[in-house]
């Protein structure tokens, strides 16, 4: 990197890349929705529409050696981190070519190569995990940063508070990224928290904290650069609250009885992709053929991923009890 690590790069090339990554997530999620309605993807599936600016703003700032812990709404994070779209789609289908051998599904994407530590279906479950990863790195005196993504719903869990306290007390190199989309499944933040200013909760544990507009990818990236730099340099935790909104329902099977359509429309006008695209067009950073090219390439990539997943194979049932313990080809009734 030539520019100082904590300053955003606003070259046209970089900006187009930010746009591309967000569109890539959006299109992937849309295809997943379609496939889910056709019963190709089963179980629970949680889509990232509206929140793309966070993953795209934060993750490219991290280094290859850094670690990521995420939630069950983690397709965007996995894709931006570099988990191949083919393997993610195959995982959604449950095929053994998937990134978790098909064993995990939508909520449990893991990738060792990119230090992507999952996908976690327990709200708040990844928080203690992240401080453990950071603890190991600190003990080994590396400068590895662990980024932990979680929703604002997790701050109600005891594990959030235990984690904040331990992270600050032991000065652990964790970047906490709170994706505050105002709803924990169907419960609005205002109905579940006495203090709705999330960053305050971290601050009162003496964790450096700030809030940023999560619908603005440039703002998120700028904040992330400062935050990652701080974590790496000072070996202390940092808390970044990204204020965002979930444009789709919590999961596929959600009648959204808990929020007004009018509210959704208001936020739709703040769609991070549209906003960014409009700004790029207004700044003449992007031409229609750029957009067309990006969309065509992405559609091809998505189609290829679907084909890959369709062609994937089912793990033989005889192997059912594998991967419960290490080094066992077949399990007995142990």
């Amino acid at each position, binding site marked *: 990197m030539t520019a100082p690590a904590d300053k955003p790069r606003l070259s046209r090339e970089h900006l187009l890349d930010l746009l591309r990554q967000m569109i890539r997530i959006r299109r992937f999620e849309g295809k997943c929705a379609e496939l889910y309605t056709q019963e190709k993807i089963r179980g629970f599936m949680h889509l990232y529409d509206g929140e793309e600016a966070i993953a795209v703003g934060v993750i490219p700032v991290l280094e290859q050696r850094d*670690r990521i812990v995420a939630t069950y709404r983690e397709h965007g994070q996995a894709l931006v981190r570099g988990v191949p779209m083919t393997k993610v789609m195959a995982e959604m289908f449950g095929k053994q070519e*998937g*990134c*978790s*051998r*098909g*064993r*995990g599904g939508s909520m*449990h994407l*893991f*990738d*060792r190569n990119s230090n992507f*530590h*999952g*996908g*976690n*279906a*327990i709200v708040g*479950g990844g*928080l*203690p*995990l*992240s*401080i*453990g*990863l*950071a*603890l*190991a*790195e600190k*003990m*080994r005196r590396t400068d590895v940063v662990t980024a932990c993504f979680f929703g604002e719903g997790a701050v109600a869990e*005891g*594990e959030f508070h*235990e*984690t904040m*306290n*331990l992270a600050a*007390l*032991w000065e652990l190199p964790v970047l906490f990224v709170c994706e505050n989309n105002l709803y924990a499944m169907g419960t609005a933040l205002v109905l579940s928290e006495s203090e709705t200013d999330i960053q305050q909760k971290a601050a009162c544990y003496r964790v450096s904290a700030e809030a940023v507009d999560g619908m603005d990818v440039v703002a998120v990236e700028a904040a992330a650069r400062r935050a990652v730099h701080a974590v790496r340099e000072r070996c202390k935790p940092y808390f970044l609250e990204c204020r965002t909104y979930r444009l789709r329902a919590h999961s596929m099977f959600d009648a959204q009885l808990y929020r007004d359509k009018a509210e959704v429309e208001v936020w739709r006008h703040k769609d991070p992709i549209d906003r960014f695209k409009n700004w790029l067009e207004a700044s003449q950073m992007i031409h229609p053929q750029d957009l067309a090219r990006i969309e065509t390439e992405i559609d091809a990539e998505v189609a290829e991923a679907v084909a890959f997943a369709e062609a994937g194979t089912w793990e033989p049932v005889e192997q059912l*009890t*594998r*991967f*419960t*313990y*290490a*080094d066992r080809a077949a399990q007995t009734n*142990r």
Partner: protein
Amino acid sequence: MQQAASKSETVEMTYREAVKQAIRDAIKHDERVFLMGEDVGRYGGCYAVTKGLLAEFGPDRVRDTPLSESGFTGAGIGAAMAGMRPIVELMTVNFSLLALDQILNTAATVRHMSGNQFGVPLVIRMATGAGRQLAAQHSHSLEGWYAHIPGIKVLAPATLEDARGMLWTALQDPDPVLIFENVMLYNMTGKIAADAGPVDIEKAAVRRAGRDITLITYGGSLWKTLQAATALAAENIEAEVIDLRSLRPLDDATIMASVAKTRRVVIIDEGWRSGSLAAEVATRIVEQAFWSLDGPISRVCSEEVPIPYPSHLENAAIPQAPKIIAAAKAALGRA
């Protein structure tokens, strides 16, 4: 209670001391190992197991934690995933319930959910059992519950050799291992080889050979069972005593070989009777050695009651030698 002395030079020590030496060895010889838990450092350990270790190894390797069972157990899981070999000490199995989500939903599942990409080579040590009049919330024996979970291993060292030697082997294991130390054993003294080292963590042990009946047990109940066996011998009943040592996986081969020999079984388990580990062992015997049995399998377990405070009630609630003797005789039709 005495241990058999080995041929090489022996030293006398307590079970507590044996555990401490095991931890010392591990921290000394494997730089990935560190210990973390409540009051393990400055306080010296709730059961005085880790006294002096903080001074010897420093706060990086011996870490006092706040009262955050879920938080620091999860941290142990994360550190293990990132290549360390942490020993998480949960003060007792009673408080481990606060960390149950991390243990069951993360430690036990990560290898499977990630398709074998990530393992969790973590050791969790916990005190367990009743007998000190600590009443209902401090006296559980939940080893059986944990032994229910695929993805982890569960150990119950009952002897000095096992207290001394299981920890190292457990730390080298690529999967999570839970070690249960019965509170009544910490003060137990005995002789152990001066060069006692790592032991296996998969096999049951025949602690006493016999021909008339098999008594299967683990952990704190081992010594009561051996006591019962001595009393039974005076009445010409030779009992074979099996110490399970590993509760998950169970060593079926050793169990079935004994049952084939004696044809009668009593299982002694400090967990509550209903849905106990004893029930699992009994069912395995029915599945694999039914045709050898000469009578029904019986169990001596804790009574269906939260553990009471007064000592006479507490003693009546958990297995004791007289109950074991009575059960053995009843199983042989010798009332």
